[in-house]
């Protein structure tokens, strides 16, 4: 079961999407009808029914605005997600979509860790500066 608004996988009993908070509509479940591994022909760009997030915006944010080389991996996955959607291979697109999300978080986490260590070093240097007069 996938959220129609943002494309995130949600639990079978969920009433709201964990990611965006939208109400889960159970009247149509387009994503659950395919047999695993069997490609489904889809219309590329047909938004709501086949909405698999590629995390391209997040990937660009971590790459360009956080200066993180790991973001490049996320962009590679984002490109592959749309490639698989264009081919109609939705299970593979969803797998790659998860990878894109993971790599965005990896980039963000590494950036945050470096930032915290960096800030700690600067604060320590300032305190040392005061202590030494």
């Amino acid at each position, binding site marked *: 079961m996938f959220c129609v*608004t*943002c494309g995130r996988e949600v*639990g079978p009993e*969920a*009433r*709201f*999407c*964990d990611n*965006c*908070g*939208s*109400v889960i509509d159970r009247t149509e479940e387009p994503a659950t009808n395919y047999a695993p591994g069997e490609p489904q022909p889809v219309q*590329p*760009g047909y*938004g709501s029914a086949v909405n698999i997030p*590629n995390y*391209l*915006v997040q990937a*660009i*944010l971590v*790459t*360009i*605005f*956080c*200066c*993180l080389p790991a973001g*490049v991996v996320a*962009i*590679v996955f*984002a*490109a*592959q997600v*749309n*490639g698989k*959607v*264009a081919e109609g291979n939705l299970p593979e697109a969803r797998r790659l979509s998860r990878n894109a999300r993971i790599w965005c978080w990896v980039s963000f986490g590494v950036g945050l860790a*470096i*930032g915290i260590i*960096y*800030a700690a070093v*600067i604060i320590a240097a300032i305190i040392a500066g005061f202590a030494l007069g």
Partner: protein
Amino acid sequence: MADLPLWRWRFLLLGFAMLPCLALLYARNPEEQGLYPVCPFYFLTGLHCPGCGALRGLHQLLNGNVIAALGYNPFAMLTLPFIGYAFLSALLVTTWGKRLPSPFIHPALIWTLLAAILAFWTLRNVPVFPFALLAP
């Protein structure tokens, strides 16, 4: 999970946390020493990453100097409208559960973008005339 998706507010919280940051960036120029820390990537490698100059560029943009902003980091400035659109769409999803139309981006376009980012990253570190313009 609770029935009420209370944590949808985390996005709005993030949005509001951005406002004082933008106000600070508007008021104080990153070219001044001491207030903003040096980028860790630049500190460690001495190289300009594709985001180098984005903060200084954003300061110029907030003060209305578009040409100066493009001079610091043309790539980051050109991606801003798209990021703003995605941010607006995410804001609408979290507040009303509706999103802006999101057209399917052809994979070839994303591969081109990746190549452009890597080329930009490389060329702005070449200290020779035409490429030196890309450096912040």
